[in-house]
């Protein structure tokens, strides 16, 4: 009957029905007064009848602060009647984080592809030499790949949870995706703390070589050698790598901190803190993934000779001269250049041993 009077509303009472009631409550004194005065016939002044309900609702629904009460149900935030930040978080996640995050990742991928097509693989101009420089120790390589493996696992599981509903459910179906998401959640939770451990190990191992020094500004101004011709001399790590390291440490620290807040809801942290943690976790991880995508690109297909240091521990002398000139010169001064065959022998590479060509090489640098 009532619905027939307001057909366009339909279910419109919806979640705003509390609001309508609120208006009704606030208006009701006036309504009552008008009827009462009409009945009595007296010309009375309007009497203010404060309605405590209206005050209460105004208080708990106010948007600038959370009214906290008391509840016999004891758990985190049980005294909070209405948490207005919940809806803000929802809007952030659904209308900003997921779409823009998706565009960001897709854009970075596209950018890398375009860059690869335009610039191609960055070659070692003077060709790969037969001389090597020792670059990363076994321990350094181990913790790097440990961090890398954990990061990749966390990134994939996190992305499944973030984009799965819009991208995967239509393909694999809800039930299978639920299975996948549960596995992702448990794996993400379990491996998260390990990321912190690996990050700390990497930080202490590499921090000394990553302190900014003279020449880094020049590198930045010349765009790392990407703009124009010629390589910019740099030390063991160049300005870009140093920046990536500090990004990894600082952003990674935020990721670890916010992740720990989210994964251990045992310290009575409230929803607002968790929402903030989730926001920062989402933004920082996307930034991190984008930067690491660039890191993976330049380390693998993007540059010739860049991966060797991290896999074998030895990098090519010419590559070092072109990309880390100061360091290469220092190594040459200190007689740390090693012949390729020596490296092969050290690594027990049987193929290289069987090659007699090593005999023809000059010995001693």
């Amino acid at each position, binding site marked *: 009957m009532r619905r027939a009077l307001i057909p366009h509303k339909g279910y419109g009472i919806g979640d705003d029905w509390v609001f309508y009631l609120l208006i009704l409550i606030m208006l009701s004194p006036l309504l009552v007064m008008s009827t009462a005065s009409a009945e009595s016939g007296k010309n009375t002044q309007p009497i203010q009848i404060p309605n405590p309900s209206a005050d209460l609702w105004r208080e708990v629904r106010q948007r600038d602060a959370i009214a906290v009460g008391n509840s016999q149900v004891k758990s985190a935030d049980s005294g909070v009647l209405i948490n207005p930040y919940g809806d803000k978080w929802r809007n952030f996640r659904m209308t900003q984080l997921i779409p823009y995050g998706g565009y960001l990742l897709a854009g970075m991928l596209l950018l890398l592809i375009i860059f690869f097509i335009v610039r191609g693989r960055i070659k070692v101009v003077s060709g790969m030499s037969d001389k090597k420089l020792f670059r990363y120790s*076994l*321990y350094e*390589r*181990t*913790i790097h*790949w*440990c961090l890398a*493996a*954990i990061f990749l696992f966390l990134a994939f599981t996190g992305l499944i949870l973030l984009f799965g509903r819009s991208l995967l459910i239509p393909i694999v179906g809800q039930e299978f995706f*639920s*299975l996948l998401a*549960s*596995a*992702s*959640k*448990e*794996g993400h*939770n*379990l*491996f998260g*703390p*390990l990321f912190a*451990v*690996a990050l700390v190990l990497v930080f202490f191992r590499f921090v000394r070589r990553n302190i900014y020094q003279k020449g880094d500004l020049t590198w930045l101004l010349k765009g790392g050698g990407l703009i124009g011709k010629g390589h910019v001399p740099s030390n063991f790590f160049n300005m870009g790598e140093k920046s990536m390291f500090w990004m990894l440490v600082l952003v990674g620290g935020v990721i670890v901190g916010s992740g720990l807040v989210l994964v251990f809801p045992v310290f009575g942290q409230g929803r607002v803190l968790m929402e903030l943690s989730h926001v920062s976790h989402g933004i920082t991880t996307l930034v991190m993934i984008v930067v690491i995508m660039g890191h993976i690109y330049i380390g693998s297909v993007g540059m010739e000779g860049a991966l060797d240091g991290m*896999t074998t*521990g030895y990098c090519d002398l010419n590559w070092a001269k072109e990309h880390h000139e100061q360091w290469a010169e220092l190594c040459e001064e200190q007689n740390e250049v090693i012949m390729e065959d020596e490296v092969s022998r*050290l*690594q*027990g590479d049987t193929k290289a041993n069987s090659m007699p060509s090593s005999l023809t090489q000059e010995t001693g640098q």
Partner: protein
Amino acid sequence: MIGELIDGPLWYFAFGVFVLGVIYRIISILRAGLKKDFSRPRAEGSAGALRTLFSRFIPRRDVATRGRLTVIAGYLFHLGLFALLIFAQPHVTFFSERITGFSWPALPYWAFIVSAELAFIGLLLLWLHRVLHPVTRLLSSIDDYVGIGLVFLVMLTGCLALAQAFEPLRLLHLFLAELLLIYFPFSNLMHAFTFAFSRAYTGATMARKGVNA
């Protein structure tokens, strides 16, 4: 259908292969016998065997310093793995239902998670060390990688199934564990049992020669 197979017959088959295989391997090692040692023993062999069996748990000083990473990672992995293999609540329940018939006190859940974390970081570090170190890479055979891979996959699927709410995830974990059980007796993973024999043999031989090793 596949689930019933994994949960039922395949499990008993795998467990049978494991038990019989391990017994067969150990018996064949014992039956191989020892070379006769004609020298006059300087000390009792069995005491040395026993001592070495336990003293080797503490690495020699040079090993402990130069191979610090592998020692730490090795202990993390093995202790974590045993803790969660034997004392994790779901495993205790499984063992008591399927094998022993009685249960024993399980670790609290948080300790189970902590031991899983330790086992994972240990295994990752050891695995990477094996791949990256030229000597261990040279020494490693396909057998080692299959063993590591299976153990890692069993641990990973176990961790993915932590919610204990999705039957397929549990079955995947169980299936990989069954593969591991079948693979176990015929691989380097037998070191879980044979380490005792090799240590005891070395200890006994050395003790007979009067060498403190």
